[in-house]
């Protein structure tokens, strides 16, 4: 009786849709009407037939770069900053709060804000560069295919980085002081202390944040939609699995592109689910194995 309302809502609006998207992918669809059973045909289409396979692997590569670069930033810069912050010196609460501030903004606002700030003519960043005599550096970063994806990833990192920092700081502060003191008594310097005491004890938190980052980055949608449009302008250079999925399922209102293809979209969704599922399973295994009781 205590359980029924939760089970009904969770079952009907989360478990059921997730499970039945598996079955959607093995049927032929005419708009929103289901036709015959087609086995793995939709998957074959996504993975081998033009233009789907080209778009799919293009987007998959972008998601991989998205995750890779974000992971690199948060485990180098993010972890470094967290180690500094964990010492609880005066004013550190302010720093921590300010790093997290962008995380509270909607990605719609983040996207538009940076679109304005990066505007080659009137944006704040190009204007600042010009005033510093670095006008040659100014480029239409969001409009060129070789800089657009990295720019979007950096904007995302700006909005996201506060979260990993927060978790790492909490994890470092949870390490009992005696461990560090014992290491120092044994003659360990700053780097050795980090390498042999702090870092191994942080591994579970690192793994957890990495799993969350992976899931999030392989679902990323808003920032590209808002900054680069539903087809990942310029010329699919910032297209992601989620934007590709969105266009395939619901059609592309801006370019009047291909109409909704539910079966094929469902196949893309199942592939995304597989990627995320396999990666998180590996991550969770690593996390539980690196856990230490203390």
């Amino acid at each position, binding site marked *: 009786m205590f359980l029924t309302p939760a089970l009904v*809502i969770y079952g009907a609006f*989360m478990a059921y849709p997730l499970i039945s998207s598996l079955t959607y992918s093995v049927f032929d669809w005419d708009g929103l009407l289901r036709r015959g059973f087609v086995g793995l045909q939709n998957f074959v289409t996504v993975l081998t037939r033009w233009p789907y396979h080209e778009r799919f692997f293009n987007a998959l590569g972008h998601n991989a770069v998205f995750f890779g670069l974000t992971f690199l930033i948060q485990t180098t810069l993010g972890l470094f900053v967290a180690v500094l912050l964990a010492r609880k010196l005066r004013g550190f609460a302010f720093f921590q709060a300010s790093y997290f501030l962008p995380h509270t903004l909607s990605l719609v606002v983040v996207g538009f804000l940076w679109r304005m700030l990066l505007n080659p003519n009137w944006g704040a960043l190009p204007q600042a560069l010009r005033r510093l005599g670095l006008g040659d550096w100014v480029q239409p970063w969001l409009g060129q295919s070789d800089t657009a994806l990295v720019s979007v990833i950096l904007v995302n990192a700006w909005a996201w980085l506060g979260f990993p920092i927060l978790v790492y700081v909490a994890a470092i502060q949870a390490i009992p002081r005696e461990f560090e003191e014992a290491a120092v008594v044994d003659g360990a310097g700053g780097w050795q202390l980090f390498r042999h005491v702090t870092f191994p004890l942080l591994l579970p938190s690192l793994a957890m944040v990495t799993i969350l980052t992976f899931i999030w980055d392989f679902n990323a949608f808003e920032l590209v939609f808002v900054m680069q449009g539903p087809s990942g302008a310029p010329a699919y250079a910032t297209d992601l699995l989620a934007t590709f999925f969105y266009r395939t399922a619901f059609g592309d209102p801006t370019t009047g592109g291909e109409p909704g293809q539910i079966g094929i979209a469902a196949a893309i969704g199942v592939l995304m689910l597989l990627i995320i599922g396999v990666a998180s399973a590996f991550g969770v295994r690593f996390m539980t194995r690196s856990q230490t009781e203390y």
Partner: protein
Amino acid sequence: MLGAGAGQSAWRRVVVYVVLGLLAVVFLFPIVLMVLTAFKTTPEIFRNPFGLPQEWTTQGFRTAWSRASFGLYLRNSLLITGSSAVLLLLTAAPAAYALARYTFRLRGVLFLFFLAGIMIPIRLGILPLYILMRDLGLIDTPFALILTYTASGMPMSVFLLSVFFRNLPRELEDAARIDGAGEQGIFWRIMLPLVRPGLATVVIVNVVPWWNDFFFPLLFLPSKTWRTIPLGMQIFFGQHLIDWSLVFSGMLLASLPLLIIYVLMSRQFIAGLTAGAVKG
């Protein structure tokens, strides 16, 4: 972490503050710029991008409020986020309580069933969910979002709250039972008030992503009546991108509610979010 020597550590401290300060500029400056720019006229934004506004204007805000129907979107966002939070607490708390304090046959299975959803983003079920909402006639109503948000928040909330309930002492329950209280009474009047910190964490963890969500409103709210702030702003910005003053004012209006709450209670925010993450 301990510094090496006394002389060295003073130097180190300076370096640490410089590094952290520079980073704070990177994170804060764009937001400060957004606030200042919102009070400038469009020509001044182009002429004077960094300084304080020479003449403070609220024209952008007034236009955004009247022409972008910001008031309507604000009401919708408040209503949808608020109802989702209430519905989530009313359903997740009893479920977590039952899973944490009673022993029954299917307990393990049910707990795993809820837990399984923690790692899976509900977005991946969007196609069946969309068709379900359409068949229920909920497209273009706030209920489509409220039900989706409540369902997606369920796994994490049930998990978090069950941890809180499990840590309550057994004697409380036994004493109440001896006094003749029924199971419902024990839960609502004795146990639930004791996990208030847990309820607050659940609200904080969920409300921020709901308030900022763009994906589900984009699909579930095709007409204007129930549009939330992020969707309303995205559509409005897209149409008025040349009017910089208007767009910056709109961005500030859209961000203000959460910014204010965050500045006022960043400590609880940070504590709540790390609790959610570290326990997940």
